[in-house]
């Protein structure tokens, strides 16, 4: 798996580096949009985490672009190792993206150029949780259908959002009571769990849940990828 990660790093470092720079520049403008003055560094990092979770698309997209899946699968590695390397690589790419953007924003914030409110102690939990959930949903599709699957996933979620917003605007929020109540109930349950367990135990439980979700997703992806033909 480490050989595969090394290969991906050599193949993609330029594109990733360029993307990190553009990504960071884009997100550094984020606080300017906020007019309330209540944006914390933690909230900003959470938003950046959502965006950076999609950076691993670069790895899959370039594999598709160069028709290199067959090349990777004809190397002396197992399909499971390829899948594991995609998950580990995906995590590394997303976390590095957040780290680069956060370092830049931290410097600007401390210098007073774009001052943000200080982060809450939950920041180290929020970032991996966001990344973990998105990667767990996204990678099985990417490994089965390549970039087409990922674009399909993104378009489908966007379309779903548009439909829900339209429904909400046309018929009022009562048009989507099921989703609304599901979101409220989930948020309520998470809040209750947080209060009951306390921050430390809650963080451990949350991170363990994210790890379990990723392990399950990785298992599913390996099962799918073993059946894929090149």
């Amino acid at each position: 798996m480490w050989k595969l990660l090394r290969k991906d790093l050599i193949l993609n470092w330029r594109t990733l580096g360029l993307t990190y720079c553009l990504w960071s520049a884009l997100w550094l403008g984020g606080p300017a949009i906020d007019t309330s003055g209540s944006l914390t560094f933690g909230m900003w990092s959470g938003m950046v985490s959502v965006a950076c979770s999609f950076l691993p698309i670069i790895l899959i997209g370039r594999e598709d672009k160069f028709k290199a899946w067959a090349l990777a699968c004809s190397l002396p590695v197992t399909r499971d190792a390829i899948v594991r390397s995609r998950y580990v690589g995906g995590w590394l790419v997303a976390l590095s993206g957040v780290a680069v953007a956060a370092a830049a924003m931290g410097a600007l914030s401390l210098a007073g150029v774009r001052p943000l409110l200080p982060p809450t102690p939950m920041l180290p939990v929020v970032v991996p949780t966001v990344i973990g959930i998105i990667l767990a949903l996204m990678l099985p599709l990417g490994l089965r259908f390549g970039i087409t699957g990922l674009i399909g996933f993104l378009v489908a979620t966007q379309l779903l959002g548009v439909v829900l917003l339209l429904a909400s605007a046309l018929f009022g929020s009562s048009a989507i009571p099921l989703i609304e109540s599901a979101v409220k109930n989930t948020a309520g349950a998470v809040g209750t769990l947080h209060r009951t367990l306390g921050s430390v135990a809650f963080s451990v439980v949350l991170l363990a849940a994210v790890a379990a979700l990723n392990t399950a997703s990785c298992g599913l992806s390996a099962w799918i990828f073993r059946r894929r033909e090149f």
Partner: protein
Amino acid sequence: MDSALEFSGIAKNYEGFALRKISFSVPRGYIVGLIGPNGAGKTTLIRLALGLIRSDGGAVEVFGRDPRLAGADIRARIGFVHEAPSFYDYLSAERVGAIMAPFYPAWDQTLFGRLIAEFGVPPRKAVSSLSRGTRTKLAIALALAHRAELLLLDEPTVGLDPVFREELLGRLSALIGDGFTSVLFSTQIVGDLERIADFIVLIRDGRLLFSGPKDDILDHWAVVRAGADLSAELAALGPRGLTTTRQGVEALVEDIDEARRRFGRRALVEKATLEDVFLLCREVSRRES
């Protein structure tokens, strides 16, 4: 005979195409030429051997193991050249070699450097700027540099200049001299195989038409060219292929002596070449069926 690669009744179904129960083997220390027209199923067989696709019946064994289950171990011992080699195009040949090297325990960096120099592959130019022939040369260098025990070559001579083709054929002949390395060489340029192959496998439309020693063909098979009036008599001989031409009929038969005895001066009987077999062979052999 110990086999490096063995297909036993292998089947694979696609929409509009199917490989039908194909069986043949690649013995250790020999070159097997796999011939057939476009769409015959040559690339599908090679992909099955690499474990890139699953079969719908039968079995593939590489070094006695199923490539889908023991793929990583097996692929370390295989060198593979695709008909249209795909690389990460913006990398140089040198860089592609550096990426591949850690995956192969037997990788020989000195040999790789020597091969790309001998083949005239520019080491520092982006692969995207190389001609198709030069990309194939790079793929061949990569396949040879890890001292593979089994070379799977899918139309490797397409796009190569005649000088390098000759060099490649010579190199392959030398490789099997150790009695251990084996080669499966798929091609439509049958002249290449006439020089180096020990065995010939002919497939057409996913069906195996012939599998056997090349010398059997070159020593015993014949093409009989006769007037149309001999058509029925030739058909009675049970030819491998019978084609009507403007001049009469052409038949591919397995026994040149019998053909000469039966047709004497009534027909032109000539030793068959692999080209004749490729063009005329239509019937599944009674022996192989």
